[in-house]
């Protein structure tokens, strides 16, 4: 069912053809020379949402806007910024939507509370199922 996303992705590519005369931003399709910095940038780009495709990271998209966002990320990392600062910088502009990595906040706390509740619930179920039986032995 991935084609649904691809469909969108491809629809993005059509306007791209209409404007292909203008070369993309320098770091849209070019890696940083320092592999350590590039690894940092890639790790960050994989967790940023392409706003024109809505369901792909900017690292996986041919949309021109994604390319321009990659350029921003790479050049900021090259300038010595911390990846998390770049993420914050983008969230300040587009809100939480731009980041695939939810931060604990007033709107996202259930995402973190539920796994903890699940751990407790799982322990409870397991003790109920297994612990009790153990005492009874082979009833």
């Amino acid at each position, binding site marked *: 069912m991935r084609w649904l996303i691809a469909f969108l992705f491809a629809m993005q590519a059509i*306007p791209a053809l*209409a*404007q292909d*005369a*203008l070369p993309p*931003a*320098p770091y*849209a399709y070019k890696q940083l020379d320092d592999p350590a910095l590039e690894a940092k940038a890639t790790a960050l780009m994989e967790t940023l949402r392409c*706003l*024109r495709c*809505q369901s792909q990271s900017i690292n996986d998209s041919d949309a*021109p*806007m994604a390319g*321009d*966002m990659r*350029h*921003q990320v790479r050049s900021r990392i090259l300038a010595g910024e911390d990846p998390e600062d770049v993420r914050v910088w*983008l*969230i*300040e*502009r*587009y*809100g939480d*939507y*731009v980041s695939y990595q939810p931060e604990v906040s007033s709107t996202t706390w259930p995402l973190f509370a539920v796994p903890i509740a699940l751990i407790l619930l799982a322990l409870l179920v397991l003790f109920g199922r297994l612990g009790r039986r153990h005492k009874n032995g082979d009833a």
Partner: protein
Amino acid sequence: MRTIFFIPLALFLFFAGLAGYMLTQEKDQTVASAMIDKSLPEFNLEPAYDGLPGASRRDFIGGEPKLLNVWASWCLPCIAEAPQLETLKERGVEIIGIAIRDKPEDVANFLARHGNPYTRIGADDISALQIEIGAAGVPETFVIDGDGNIRYQHIGDIRENDVPKLLQILEDVR
């Protein structure tokens, strides 16, 4: 009857209610800027073609509130909103354009064909300013007050019925 067996049903009913509610809602696909009521970032863009000067943050400081119109010659809705921008210009609104990933000759052609409502057009070849102000697409129009603060964002092309609303907001932020 044990209450624990009702938990899945309760969760499901919650989901069904939510899903039903969302089905009735108009789906909002836009990504709003988080920069509203914040100061316009510092920028200085080259002219997008040789007919008008480029744009910088300075151009918004002092005087009446202005519109910052993010557009491009390759964008179809931008053609649709051209008459509305013209109307706004006639009503005395100053519109500063930001052309995204555009070539000078294309900009000139577009303006010759669809009219030129702008006083300045800056060229943003790598969407740098677009990203700075949290615009996710083209066209988008921002209301900037005389102190250089972003006060309002209109996403998508400006329709006829959006014009009075924009004029009202421009009035309100004076």
